[in-house]
């Protein structure tokens, strides 16, 4: 497979393992560009990319913008604040307006699950889902897999534990789909109140006890606990959450000796992850961020760059 035969990247649920493989391979070859002194290639010259963000973001947005710029595409950033969205312009009209200006691709972050799907139906241009509600965050899932593959040499057969607020996490969902398609064994652990209904029907093993969940795992992906959840009674206190589900050095001993610790960010240091782990030898959290740029370059290329091989750049 050398090409993605699709207009949009909406999630990993409907993506094949061959497609994921292609994206990761492409990203790997692009990563080299990031270490050059002149980080610029002309592959997407003349292409217009719109980042449309209905929700706050630092890393995803900057990562997409940087990826586009490195590939010489022109980027336009639109966010809720300061746009006509605040005058009440609907999502549909916002999309049609921007498309009429000649956008080739939209990167969409939205607090509503399914918003990128809605956009993809309306638009002729490509759509990349940069995180929709609690649904999917496919580029995060891909960059997590790239990070695992680069460190472990493979994904297949690995035991990967995702810890924390699974219910509200689009990162968890994209990881579950992606990892299971690539042959990893996915474990989930978090408070029962933050595990969505019937999650055990997905290809996962669910644990209540973190120590048991950590036993022999190759990768731990720690999710951010959203403190505002506490007000809705999902767990009694940060203190108790940390005691039950916080990742610390001591607990990590149960995992494989070369365990990888990942976090999609932003982190609450001292709550879901202790600082010594976050900055420690097992953590690959900044590497994830770098891989994020590479994965997004790969996707932009595969959706916009045409059929040619990466090498022809």
């Amino acid at each position: 497979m050398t090409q993605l035969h699709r207009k949009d990247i909406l999630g990993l649920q409907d993506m094949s393992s061959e497609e994921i493989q292609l994206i990761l391979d492409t990203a790997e070859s692009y990563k080299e560009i990031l270490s050059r002194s002149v980080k610029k290639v002309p592959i997407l010259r003349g292409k217009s990319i719109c980042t449309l963000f209905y929700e706050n973001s630092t890393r995803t947005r900057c990562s997409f913008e940087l990826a586009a710029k490195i590939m010489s595409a022109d980027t336009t950033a639109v966010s809720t604040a300061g746009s006509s969205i605040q005058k009440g312009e609907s999502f549909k009209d916002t999309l049609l307006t921007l498309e009429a200006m000649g956008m080739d691709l939209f990167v969409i972050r939205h607090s509503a699950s399914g918003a990128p799907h809605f956009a993809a139906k309306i638009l002729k241009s490509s759509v990349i889902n940069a995180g929709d509600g609690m649904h999917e965050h496919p580029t995060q899932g891909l960059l997590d897999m790239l990070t695992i593959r680069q460190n472990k040499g493979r994904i297949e057969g690995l035991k990967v534990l995702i810890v924390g607020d699974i219910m509200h996490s689009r990162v968890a969902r994209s990881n579950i789909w992606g990892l299971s398609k690539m042959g990893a064994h996915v474990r989930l652990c978090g408070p029962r109140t933050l595990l969505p209904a019937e999650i055990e029907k997905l290809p996962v093993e669910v644990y209540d006890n973190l120590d048991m969940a950590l036993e022999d795992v190759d990768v731990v992906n720690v999710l951010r606990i959203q403190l505002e959840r506490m007000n809705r009674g999902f767990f009694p206190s940060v203190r108790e959450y940390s005691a039950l589900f916080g990742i610390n050095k001591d607990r990590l001993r149960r995992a494989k000796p070369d365990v990888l610790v990942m976090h999609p960010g932003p982190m609450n240091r001292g709550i879901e992850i202790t600082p010594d782990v976050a900055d420690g030898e097992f953590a690959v959290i900044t590497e994830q961020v770098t891989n994020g740029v590479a994965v997004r370059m790969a996707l932009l290329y595969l959706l916009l760059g045409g059929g040619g091989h990466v090498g022809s750049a």
Partner: protein
Amino acid sequence: MWALLRNGQVIDPFRDYTGTADVLIAGGSVAALIDRCDRERQSLRTILIQLDLDERDGQVFDCSGFVICPGLIDIHVHLREPGYEYKETIATGARAAAAGGFTTVVAMPNTMPAVDNGAVVRYVLDRGRETPIRVFTAGAATKANNGAEMAEIADMVEAGAIALSDDAFPIQSADLMRRVMEYARMFNIPILTHCEDKSMTQDAVMNEGLVCTILGLRPWPRQAEEIMIWRNILLADLTGCRVHIQHVTTRGGVEAVRWAKSRGIPVSCETCPHYFSLTDEALLTFDTNAKCCPPLRTSDDVEALKEGLADGTIDIIASDHAPHAQEEKEVEFQDAAFGIVGLETAVPIVITNLVKTGTLTIEQAISKMTAAPAKLLGLSGGLAVGSAADITVLDPNCEVVINSSTFQSKGRNTPFDGWKLSGKVVATIVNGEIVSGELKTVPIEDCC
């Protein structure tokens, strides 16, 4: 003026009659039911003469292959007027009803202002009288549907309200619901209740379960519905008020009502075509036209609803016709309005998914859309001689393709667009007048 509906399969659940017969309409009423034996004994001419009708002043309509039944009754429609005329008006809703085979509808009171006093009841009824069908209304159980203060129920009953409802604004306080029931009992009117524990459905948009988990949408657990069904059953038992559970969607809900009926508690219930025809998987594409409240459930629930329909636990099929404007559905899923238009799709869905599948006989299906709702609300109907000639003529075997762009309703929000179904409404007759559809005439000589 007379008209003869000739040679149809007459099904009258009001008196358990099924047979091939002719229905003679005169002066807006049913004048005679002429079965085969009658026809052999005497000619149409003779019958007309006996009834003092002028042969030249009438028409014969061929109904061969059609079902002739009492006019269908839908006790759960949102006509949106006053206040939301951009979604639907009483006039457009009535046209949709007529097109869908309904001769009588009961409007829900969640309008703006709410139907919470006699003046607004009279407004709705007056507007209804300007339409070709019969429009009744439920009154809001609480003032402005605020769920806090009882509305002036006597005033509304006096003005013509035939039921109370908390539809769309379920009364959360058990104590207030108890008092509403006690008070309503004085007027012997039922409460049509929307069962939802709002504390469990904050921001919820779809059935809790695997599909919801995959889509990352806010879950609407079945228990939010079932807890309130049980509460209202217990309050019906306490107060003796007739309680009608609207749009039952879950197996647990059906079981609760079955239990209540076995105990003799005065409870009835309805479900809607979308709940026994679709599951939450219809939302996998984030189709806002399949977003409704309560939400679409699972295939196990669909099974349970069909069992409940077949064993009589579910008395009534209502549409919960809920029209919305295009711009209220063409938005992000979580922001889209809840509701599905149902008046113009109910008949083919019921025939295809209940009758053709053998879940219900056509007599049972028609009963749940005529005699059962009439009994609940004390409405007249049926094809007995002397009854108002409110009649629906159906072709159960005709294939139809749902095309929302041809709807009489202003609402186009249906998940059934493009579905190929069996069952066509051929004509809708109110007071002896064809108000929608058409019938082929045949020369009177052919009958004499």
